[in-house]
């Protein structure tokens, strides 16, 4: 390490960089810095013992190919100038200020751990959950392991028209055999096996031209065995014409919805309409106003919706209430209206209105040496490629600042040398990447017996015990 260090310019040292968060944003930022700088050391911190963020906890269990990025992240973590430190909560176990003392640059990539709320009466009734918590539950996120969602009703209502909403609809209605061989948690699988849910509505405030989900996920839902899509043709009147000249992605997506709406119920061999047990449908221009309780006041029994009309066109169209109302009966409500980032540390500026860290090209406004990438920088939208490009951009800013002298590498900084001592003094014991690999191996071994890629460990204490902490 020292020989490499002194091989640099006269008087300069190896830059040590800190990344907070080990999801795609953290790893892609680290990867790009390491690839384009011969000497930099990058340390990735993560509050959970286990890495990978939403790739592990957000991507649906039946989308394993999307998780292939873990291979490249693993390669990065194993490289000699990269280190992983799990079980360290920045903002609690160590402050951003302390990290800035120890590192030449600190990159915040901690994502969006919270969700937006509707702020309507009844939102806290039993049977109402945030999509984020529900996804966390079936994906084994430790904080959601005790969610115990009640799946004993027939009709579920998902508020929102994004990919997360479609993911949840698909998980609720998938044939159990499909899910059995995935890395969905055992506990969720058991709950879904007992589930009585046979109808799922996805309701959004705006229209078909404003849906946020993408065509692959929609197609998957349409083709889901044992289910019937229910789309109202009246919702699509005139839309064929409206998207005639639209960009191809919007056009194809809309055309697929129109086709599905106009299609006669599929006459599959040996399957009559009545025999298709499960249904799902899209409801448009409905804005939730109140969650209605059962007579004993304990659970949700329905949602009162305001019907809306659209003002404006395309992405910027606004939903305006018409005054008409509708009640939709349901026993399970999932609010899928967006994730939300939280402020980490008083030393870090935070734009509460937009839920992001104010920045320019990833450089945090007003705080030299501090950067951000991923959802905490741009907002909680986009797929992995979006985050990848964004992370490369932030990494580029860091590299430019290293080259241009904006980051002063003539002062040697201790990196984990300093942080490790501080953590020790506070009784915090970081989890290394090879520790994670032990947990990984245990999960894979447990899954093997059941024919699953892994059986996720959902209790952080169990993870720590496994590695002897």
């Amino acid at each position, binding site marked *: 390490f020292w020989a490499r260090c002194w091989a*640099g310019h006269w008087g300069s040292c190896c830059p040590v960089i800190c990344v907070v968060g080990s999801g795609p944003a953290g790893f892609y930022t680290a990867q790009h810095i390491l690839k384009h700088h011969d000497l930099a050391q990058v340390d990735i911190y993560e509050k959970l013992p286990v890495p990978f963020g939403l790739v592990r906890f957000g991507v649906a269990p039946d989308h394993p*190919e999307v998780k*292939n*990025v873990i291979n490249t992240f693993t390669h990065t973590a194993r490289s000699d100038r990269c280190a992983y430190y799990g079980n360290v909560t920045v903002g609690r176990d160590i402050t951003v200020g302390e990290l800035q003392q120890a590192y030449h640059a600190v990159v915040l990539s901690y994502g969006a751990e919270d969700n937006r709320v509707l702020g309507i009466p009844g939102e806290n009734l039993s049977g109402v959950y945030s999509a984020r918590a529900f996804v966390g539950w079936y994906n084994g996120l430790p904080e959601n392991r005790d969610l115990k969602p009640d799946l004993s009703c027939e009709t579920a209502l998902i508020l929102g028209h994004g990919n997360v909403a479609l993911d949840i609809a698909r998980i609720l209605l998938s044939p159990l055999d499909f899910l059995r061989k995935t890395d969905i948690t055992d506990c969720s699988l058991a709950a879904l096996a007992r589930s009585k849910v046979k109808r799922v509505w996805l309701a959004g405030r705006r229209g078909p031209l404003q849906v946020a989900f993408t065509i692959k996920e929609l*197609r998957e839902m349409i083709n889901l065995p044992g289910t019937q899509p229910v789309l109202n043709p009246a919702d699509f009147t005139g839309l064929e014409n409206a998207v005639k000249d639209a960009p191809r992605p919007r056009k194809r*997506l809309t055309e697929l919805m129109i086709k599905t709406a106009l299609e006669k119920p599929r006459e599959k061999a040996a399957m009559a309409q009545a025999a298709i047990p499960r249904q799902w449908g899209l409801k448009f221009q409905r804005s939730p106003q109140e969650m209605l309780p059962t007579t004993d006041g304990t659970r949700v029994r329905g949602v009162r919706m305001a019907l809306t009309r659209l003002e404006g066109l395309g992405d910027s169209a606004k939903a305006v209430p018409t005054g008409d109302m509708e009640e939709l009966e349901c026993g399970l409500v999932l609010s899928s209206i967006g994730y939300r980032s939280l402020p980490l540390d008083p030393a870090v500026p935070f734009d509460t209105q937009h839920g992001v860290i104010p920045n320019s090209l990833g450089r945090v406004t007003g705080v030299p040496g501090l950067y951000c990438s991923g959802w905490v920088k741009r907002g909680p939208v986009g797929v992995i*490629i979006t985050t990848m490009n964004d992370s490369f*951009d932030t990494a580029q800013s860091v*590299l430019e600042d290293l*080259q241009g002298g904006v980051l002063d590498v003539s002062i040697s900084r201790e990196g984990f040398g300093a942080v490790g001592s501080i953590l020790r003094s506070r009784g915090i014991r970081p989890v290394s990447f090879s520790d994670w690999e032990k947990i990984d191996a245990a999960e894979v071994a447990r899954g093997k017996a059941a024919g699953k890629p892994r059986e996720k460990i959902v209790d952080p204490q169990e993870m720590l015990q496994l590695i002897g902490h």
Partner: protein
Amino acid sequence: MHIWFSVTASSKLLVILGFIFSNSRLKLLQRTEKQNEEEKGKNKVTEQNCLRSKQMSRRGFSSTCKLQGSHGELSSADSVTVHFINRDGERLTTMAKEGESLLEVVVNQNLAIDGFGACEGTLACSTCHLIFEKDAFQKLDAISDEEMDMLDLAYGLTETSRLGCQVRIKKLMDGLTVQVPVEVSDIRSQLEVGKQSKQ
């Protein structure tokens, strides 16, 4: 500078030696033919060169990055020449086998294209998006719905775009040139850098 005086003599010697022999991060270093052949004798783009020239290119210098190493490995009978124009304009020229997908070519030849093929060819992302010339595009095998679904999410989508993992090399593609699309965010950041005038 103040560090120098507190360091031992042997360390100073190390520094001086290190300084003499070190590769400067800012200089474009030409590697010898011998050094390239030492790279396991594979057809490999000299990644260091490409990376450095890429950094230079971001500042507006153009450069070419040629494949070095022995071409004798692949028999000319079953290999074609393919050119990838990288995001900053540098041309990466390589040999490719018939039947290989363009993603496999990039991976096997270790081409310096950032973030290419994230989902490893499983039609779960659009990071292997490539832009073809019109006549080459028309000769490609028909695109599937599944490919189009993912291509729809790609940045800088054009009428001659395809996903590299779905396009397989054929003999008639000898001399094929494909463009790695410039990301939307890249364009924005180039504009920003222009405004900040760091030079």
